[in-house]
């Protein structure tokens, strides 16, 4: 009993070195099997050392646990996510926030390339790329090919704020839901975004009269 107790004390002391790590351990301990937990924590340690955000990794493990996935699957998912996070951070370069790295990882998984993430960051100096990268991912989820989605997001990057990006994505979603193909919806919305002034220039709306309609 005595050796075991000191072993426990040692483990406890080690665990309490970082409060956050302890908190994460508690959540994982409650939900994962010991084997899965060990593997996941190894990934977390490595991510922490590399300066990557760990919360998304913990969330992914907890998601797997709640959904009843087996250990192999949980560990594979966690490893894949960690790799994506590292790749996103490498693509963005230094000085990028956790939320941006996480969004970048999703974008990579959706099919964006590292150079696209780098271009996105260049196009928005001093601004967060979280929402832009998230919208890129969402557009791909809607069915827009990755290259096209990337081009659209980059086209907007210079002048769109977060609200504009989200409104843009919402509009494309709605158009797709109402029957447009994803690329057509994207193109129309891009045109609308870019030439809103042209629309206003068409003048106040009046009912069309028979005969020659008004020339735009």
């Amino acid at each position: 009993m005595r050796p075991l107790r000191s072993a426990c004390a040692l483990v406890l002391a080690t665990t309490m070195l970082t409060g956050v790590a302890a908190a994460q351990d508690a959540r994982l301990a409650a939900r994962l099997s010991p084997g899965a937990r060990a593997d996941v924590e190894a990934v977390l340690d490595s991510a922490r050392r590399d300066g990557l955000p760990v919360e998304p990794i913990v969330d992914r493990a907890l998601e797997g646990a709640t959904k009843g996935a087996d250990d192999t699957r949980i560990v594979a998912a966690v490893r894949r996510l960690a790799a994506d996070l590292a790749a996103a951070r490498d693509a963005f370069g230094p000085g990028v926030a956790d939320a941006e790295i996480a969004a970048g990882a999703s974008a990579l998984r959706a099919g964006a390339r590292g150079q696209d993430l780098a271009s996105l960051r260049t196009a928005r100096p001093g601004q967060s790329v979280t929402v832009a990268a998230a919208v890129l991912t969402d557009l791909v989820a809607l069915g827009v090919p990755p290259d096209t989605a990337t081009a659209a997001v980059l086209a907007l990057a210079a002048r769109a704020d977060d609200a504009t990006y989200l409104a843009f994505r919402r509009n494309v979603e709605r158009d797709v839901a109402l029957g447009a193909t994803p690329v057509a919806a994207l193109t129309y919305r891009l045109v609308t975004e870019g030439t809103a002034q042209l629309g206003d220039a068409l003048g106040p709306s009046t009912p069309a009269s028979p005969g020659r309609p008004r020339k735009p």
Partner: protein
Amino acid sequence: MSDPNGMLDRGIEVLREPVVLDHQIDARVMAAIAGLPTPARSGPFLRAGDWLIRPRPIRIRPAVALAAAAALVVAVVGLRERTEPPPSLQTTPTATAAREAPTVRFMLVAPSATTVSLVGDFNDWAADATPMEGTVTDGLWTVTVPLQPGRYRYAFLVDGATWVPDPDAPRALDDDFGRPNSVLTIGGT
């Protein structure tokens, strides 16, 4: 002869010609409604009509003006049939403190569900952390959650067993566990 505009004008003229449909439509419509209950005046929420094939969430978020960031709205109203204009993006600032997390209201129509909970990144994917409240009459389940800006994967868990993504929200593309999720993005960082 090349006068496409003139051709278009003439086309419009032709298109405006009246159309007469088969009057049998009248009889078919009246037969279809014969068995229906008298329509009742109802509120703005959806009723579980025959066009609601699957649980449909509606998410409305009252916008909050964050001091340092743009006011943000994540409003998706999942009406396939629109009998009134969809709500415009709400951008009225409310009198909340700058640091307070904006709240998002999740809604799901699931008439035959016994329990529905919201499960996602923001509650550690705990199946019972965020139960939703349902009304018996129209199967409408809701919950309001404060959320800091960020990107959240989530889904609805119906009767503790069925995972239901949000059909009107973007899907999460990384589906590692065989059950699709939705993603909610709240800007403001």
